[in-house]
Structure formats: C-alpha cells, structure tokens
C-alpha cells in the first residue's frame, strides 16, 4: 500500500501548492487593487487611524481632525460650517470625499510618496503618523463678505488675484455644511446626504466652477471688445452702428437694445460708449463684422473650451462651433448657446487687469508637514496671453467708464478706480434674467478681479439687472480684499 500512499502525498502536496499560489495571488499581486476597491472599509478605517492634516485659510484651520472615542479614531470637523465647503469639500466615511479633501488626499492622509522619508523617522521614533496640512489661497474676509452678500440668492462669486491667479474667494450659494457628512453616525450622515441630494436648490453643485454654466450675457462683450481691439480695426473712439434695434440678416427678427433706444445720435455710437451703456446692437454688428472665427478664437484664448483644475476640475465654458450670422449676432452679446462659468469670467477680468497676461487660477498655496516644513508650494503659472498690454489698457479704460458713468455704477468704491462690466442674461421665457458683474480694482494697480452671478434675478426678480443685483456684491468683495 506504500505506493498509493506516496501518490496520495503528491496529491496533498499539489493541494497545498494550490493554496500557496492562491494566497500569494491575493496578498501580493492583487493586494493593491483590493485596497483600492470602492467601499473597502479597511482602507477607510486605516485612513481614519491617523490624524488627517488640516486645511488652513490664513492661520485658521477650516478643516481639522479631532480625536474621538469610537472605532474611527479621528473625526473630521469643519469649524466654520458651510463657509468654506466650496473649497474644502467634505470627507465622509460613507460618501468618500470632494474638493481639496479629495484632490489633496494623499498629502492630508499622509500617504503621499513625498512624505515617505519623513514617516520613516516617525516610525523609528514611535511617533504616530500624521498627515500634512494644506494652505488655501482664500482671503477669509472676502470669502465671508461674498457669502453674506449673496445671502439666500442662488449664485456664485469668484475672486482672483490677477497678478498670480490665487483664488481669493470661492463661493457658491446655496451651499452645505460638511460636518454632518463627516459624522461617524452613519445614519445621520446618510440622512444629511440624502437631504442634500434631494434638495431642488442643489446645494452640492459648485456653481462657481461646475454648475450648469450660465449664458454670460453682456459680460461676453469684453471678449468681443478684446477681439475687436486686437484686430486693429477698432479703437475705443471708433464709431460703430448703434440703432435701437438691429434686423438680423436673412430673417425678419430684430435684436433690440435693453433700453429700446438708439445708442447715439444718427444710430452711431463710439465703441467705448457702446460698452459703457451695454449697447446690444453695436456689439451684434461688431461681432458680425469681425466674423465668428475671430470671436471664437478670442474666447478660446481666454479659456473657453479649455480644461482647467484648481485642483477641482472646472467645467470648460462653451462658445458654439458653427454659427450663421443671426446666431453670431446673438452670441456676440453672450446669448444663444454661449455658456460660461463664473470662474471663466473672473479669469477674463483678471487677464485684462494683468496687462493681458492670464494667470492659472489655483486654490492651494502650499503643503506643509507636521514640522511646518514646506513640502510643495504652488508657483503662479501663465495660463495664456489672450491680448496685448495695449489692448488690455484700452479695455481697462472702457471698463472704468462702465463703473464711473455706465451700467455698473453700483460697483464704484470711493477713492478707488474700479473697472467692470455688467451682464443681464435672458435664459428662457418666463424666467427672470441671470445677472452678472465682473471687474477688477484698483484699475491702475489691480489687486483683485471678481465675477458674480446671481441666478434668476435674485431677490429683485423681474426687474433685476447686473448693475442692480450683482455689482453691489462685487463691490463689497473688492472692498474686502482691498481692506476698505
């Protein structure tokens, strides 16, 4: 019987070999992909087992981990509630993370390869591992003022430092409180999330960078102006057609001015005046005269259709691909299918403010380890050079006239030269206009560029215009940054 016993031994050896192979496959070859599976509680628990780094605005932590007694050792809290939710995002056991919490997770959690050598020392000294902290570019005052100014209205505010691209304010309204989502009480977190998801006002949507985009209305006239001035055929004093209404070529439709009058005597108007009073007929005809390629290419240079992440991804703004003349006329005043994000319009103002050099917007200025050593810092980068400094300076003059004596007087700050442009965008019959303001200050040495959108007329409703609703908000934000 010894021969079959030996063979049985071979069978047993084969079975054990199979087990050695299967365990090796799982624990060596598949370990990484198993860890990365969505919903892997162990990976989540591991991420809660050490102190997550803070997210800072100025010297204040706006997202910080606090020790708890439950089995998730650290609770993520947001001391200022919803104020910075647009930037920080949330960090939830059940729903994952968003915003900077997500984009900088490897640093905050301390898993980044860049922290590896620092952690070796922690392991040797027995110090518990801790994540790195992330410093935001936000200006606390501007963020507070913008949030307060928007109030209950739906909309968004973006403020940029035109010289660097640093984001000074990033506000969307309504927003949400990330605290309940981070709760370790899973039922409470679930209830909070479901409520946010089912809210018709869509508080989880960041209207500043990736809402459904808005028709930019008259703020788009800045881009048409840039194209016109860059073409060499126009100067601020050039006389352009400005009738009360313009017959769209090949149709019986008329494109009117908002104020139902001609923009100037003999249906003519200077280019600077056309921007100052937001003359639709002038811009429609200038746009048609320039041709769609010139307008589209200028829009693209400013960033339309281009990918961008701040580090959250910004939905690219849209200028339609092919247009007939009537469509081009409407597109030139920011209507038809033109769509822009508040971030994009803030970038347009910032580029004009910065002498034609458009900087890439960024939200994180630096990452520091627990010893406060800087691990990574963001250096300003040029996004594009859409216009010459000459054109930028001409545009600045035109925008200043909007605030000193045009549609944007509500944005005026005593003692400061402010440049701006209003927008009042129709977006369907029966709906009130979405109103805009974008601009920068001080005009000579710009410190802040801003874009404000208020959906559906805000608190004023039917009679709302960019000058009435959006300009005062922009004014307050600019004042906050300038320290007025």
């Amino acid at each position, binding site marked *: 019987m*010894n021969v079959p*016993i030996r063979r049985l*031994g071979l069978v047993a050896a084969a079975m054990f070999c199979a087990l050695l192979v299967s365990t090796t496959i799982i624990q060596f070859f598949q370990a990484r992909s198993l860890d990365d*599976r969505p919903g892997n509680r*162990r990976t989540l628990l591991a991420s809660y087992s050490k102190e997550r780094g803070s997210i800072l605005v100025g010297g204040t932590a706006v997202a910080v981990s606090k020790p708890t007694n439950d089995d998730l050792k650290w609770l993520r809290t947001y001391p200022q509630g919803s104020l910075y939710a647009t930037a920080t995002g949330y960090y939830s056991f059940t729903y994952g993370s968003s915003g900077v919490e997500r984009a900088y997770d490897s640093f905050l959690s301390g898993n980044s390869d860049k922290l590896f050598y620092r952690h070796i020392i922690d392991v040797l000294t027995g110090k518990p591992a801790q994540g790195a902290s992330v410093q935001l570019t936000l200006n606390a005052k501007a963020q507070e003022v913008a949030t307060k100014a928007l109030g209950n209205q739906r909309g968004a505010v973006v403020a940029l430092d035109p010289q660097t691209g640093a984001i000074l304010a990033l506000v969307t309204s309504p927003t949400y409180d990330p605290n309940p989502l981070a709760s370790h009480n899973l039922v409470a977190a679930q209830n909070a999330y479901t409520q946010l998801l089912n809210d018709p006002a869509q508080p989880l949507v960041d209207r500043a960078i990736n809402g459904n985009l808005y028709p930019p209305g008259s703020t788009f006239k800045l881009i048409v102006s840039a194209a016109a001035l860059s073409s060499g055929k126009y100067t601020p004093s050039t006389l352009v057609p400005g009738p009360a209404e313009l017959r769209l070529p090949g149709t019986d439709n008329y494109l009117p001015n908002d104020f139902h009058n001609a923009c100037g005597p003999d249906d003519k108007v200077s280019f600077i005046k056309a921007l100052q009073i937001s003359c639709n007929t002038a811009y429609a005809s200038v746009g048609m005269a320039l041709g769609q390629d010139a307008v589209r290419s200028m829009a693209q240079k400013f960033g339309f259709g281009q990918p961008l992440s701040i580090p959250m991804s910004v939905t690219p703004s849209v200028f339609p691909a092919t247009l007939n003349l009537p469509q081009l006329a409407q597109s030139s005043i920011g209507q038809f299918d033109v769509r822009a994000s508040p971030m994009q319009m803030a970038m347009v103002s910032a580029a004009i403010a910065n002498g034609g050099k458009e900087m890439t917007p960024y939200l994180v200025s630096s990452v520091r380890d627990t010893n406060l050593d800087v691990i990574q810092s963001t250096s300003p980068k040029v996004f594009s050079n859409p216009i010459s400094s000459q054109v930028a300076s001409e545009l600045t003059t035109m925008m200043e006239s909007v605030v000193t004596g045009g549609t944007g007087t509500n944005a005026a700050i005593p003692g400061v030269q402010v440049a701006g442009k209003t927008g009042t965008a129709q977006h369907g019959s029966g709906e009130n206009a979405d109103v805009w303001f974008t601009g920068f200050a001080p005009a000579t040495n710009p410190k802040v560029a801003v874009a404000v959108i208020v959906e559906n007329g805000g608190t004023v409703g039917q009679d709302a215009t960019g000058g009435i609703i959006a300009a005062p908000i922009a004014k307050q934000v600019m004042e906050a940054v300038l320290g007025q």
Partner: protein
Amino acid sequence: MSVVSTVAPKTRRGTELVLLVGALVIVLLAYTNVGLAINDTVPVDLATLGGGFAVVALIFHLVLRWKAPYADPVLLPIVTLLNGLGLVMVHRIDLAPGDPHAGPKQLMWTAVGVAAAIGMLFLVPDHRRLRRYTFTFGAAGVVLLLTPLLPVIGRNINGSRVWIGLGGFSFQPSEIVKILLTIFFASYLVQTRDALSLVGRRFLGLPLPRARDLGPIIIAWLASLGVLVFESDLGTSLLFFGLFVGMLYVATERRSWIIIGLGLFLAGSYTAYLLIAHFRERVELWLNPFNPNMSDQIAKGLMGMGAGGIFGTGLGQGHPELTYYANSDFIIPSFGEELGLIGLFAILVMYALIVERGLRTAIACRDGFGKLLASGLAFSMALQVFVIVGGVTRVIPLTGLTSPFLSAGGSSLLANWVIVALLLRISDQARRPEVEERVAQLGSDDTQVVKVR
C-alpha cells in the same frame, strides 16, 4: 516488513520538548502582542491563561513519554502552536467591538480536546483494537451524521442543518463522524481489499467490484449524499467524498477508483449545480466575489487579506472583525490580514507538516489497518485545509468548514485533537522496535517475559 533490530531507536521525546517550548513561547508572545496592540498593556491574565495553556500542552507531552514514547515528535509541537495561535486570534476578535465572546469557550474546549486525546492514548494502547468494533463505528457514524435531522435536538444555523443542541450546548457531529467513518473504512477496506481489487468484472476497461462488497460503502456514501441534500453542508460532503476515494485508492491500489470517483464527483457536482440554488449561488460567488447583489463575505475576506499584504498589519492592528465568521470559517483571512502572506505560509506549512507526518506514519506502519487509518486521517486533514482555505482564497467555491485547530468551535477542536492522538498512537506503534512489540503481544497472552527496556 522492517528488519528486526535489537538497537532501540531514539524516542525523540527530548526533541519534542524543545519544539514544544518553542511553540509555547511563540503563542505567549502572540498573546502579549495582542494585548499591547489593542489595550496598550501586557494582558493581566498572561500568567494564568498562558501558563494554563502551557501546562495543558506539557501534560500531554508527559503522557506521551509515558504511554507512547516512540510517537512522532513533531506533531504535538505543531498542533500546540496552531491551537495556541487559534486561541490568540479568537481572543483577539473577541476584543473587537460587537463580537461574541468565544475565547473562554475555546480555551475550555482546548482543555477538553487535550483531555480526550490523553484519554485516547490510555483507552487505545494499540490502534489495532479499534478493528474489533468495525461495524459499531460505521453504524455510530451514520446515526450521528443523521442526528441534526432529528426534530428536537437538530439545529439549523446559517442555512445548514449540521448542528445538534441541548440547552445552551451545541455540537457539530460531522466532525466526530469524520473520525468514526475513517476508522470504519480503514477496517472494512482491510478486510475486503482483496475482493474489491481482484474480484469483479471489467466494464469499459475498468474493473468493477461485486455489489455485495460495495454494500457498506454505498450506505456510507448515501449518508454523505444525505448530508449534502438534507443538511446543505457542501463542505462536509465534499470532505467525506474525497476521503472515501482516497482510502479506496490506497486500499486497492487501483487507479480505476480514482477515475470512478472523479466521474461520480463531476456528475454529482453538476447535478447539485442544477438542482440546488444554494450551490449555484456559491459557484457564482466563486467566479464573481464582488457581485454587488450577493453576499460580500468572500469579498470582505479578500479585502482583509489584501490589507495584510506580505507582512500583515500585525496582530491586533487589522480589522478582521469586518469579515463575517472572522473567527470560524474565515479565520484564515483573519490570519492573512494580521500576519500577512508570511504568516499564512507558515500556517499552511504547519498543516502540510501534519499531513506529511501522518502519511509518513502510514508508510512506516506495519499493519494494513494502521496504514489505511493513518493515511485516511492525514488525507482528511489535507482535504479539510484545502476545502476551507481554497474556499476563502477562491481556488474552489466556498463550502464552509473549520480550519483545524484554528477556528472557534468545540467539536472541531475535540475531533482534531482525537485525530492527532490516533496519529500519535499509530506512529508510536510504527516507530517502536519490533522486539518490544512482540514482547507486548506475548505479554498479552500472559507469558513471562524479560523487559528489554
């Protein structure tokens, strides 16, 4: 058979003691490690509990010195290490929030298991005595196997009716049945192996045995099928099946049995797949463990093993409690998570060593019954490890069995300690010098002899 020698072979009891102390040190360190990792202190009961465990193991060692001096020296240390690590892990999972307190029970059953093993060494001074009760064992096995189907004492736990219970006490009879049927088969096959291998007709080139020689096997076979159908216990039925085929092959030395067995197995599996929804589910989960609409227990075990990686999270520092049945069917993934691939390899090698020592005992054994019994017991251990570890690591569909010595569960511990006692008894017989054995035989016939040792 072996050459008669007057030089007594070494008993190797000293080697056993050294290995045993090593095993105990590892277990006590592991226990301390768990306490430090979870409660930041050395467990207060290290001296009492750990010392108690060490005393139990050392008592067994002393009994071996006395009652089975030539027994294999490797088995007891390995089994002690496995049992000890199992205790540590069961205790460790007890410490995780929301889990049952299985540790004290497991410790109690360890003592019961060792006591039963010691009892076996006393009760069965020679394994050949077991042959006297061939059919008693067979009948007892079948009856015990069917007890969970009885109305009052049968218990249905987690979809399988494989438990019996009285009051707060529950027991899984299939573990004991495994031993009873192995003894029965070894004994029966020794008697009938000639008939089974020689008598009969050829059919399609395969020699088939006579129906009357097959009778008892068919009865046991049907009983194991009953386990599958009426108790929904796939693991046990797979284990019995593999065991029968293996022992038949060893007894008859005919490959035809393997072919017949494999054929029956494939046909049976396919029929089960078609008829039993429970089984189809298992196959689906085997192929696609992350199927979102089905149980995620395999998935959770896999993610646990993934979290452990090569070196493991360290005892007490993973989250094995996230897996269902983390201390019973899924204790292997629990070890994989906390001790890593390295720890799992060590455990698998220990199991392989038990099997190897068992088969080696079978080869060295001088009587056919002992050979068959030892190879059956060793092979059943190999099969059980393969079925459960293969189940949780997706080599085969998960069918649910305990990991010998590791899993929480009294019946399993008790049965495996008895198996080890039997293997020790047979190895003692196999390694004992021929002379002494003859003396022992003579002694039983009331003949005056002179002791040589």
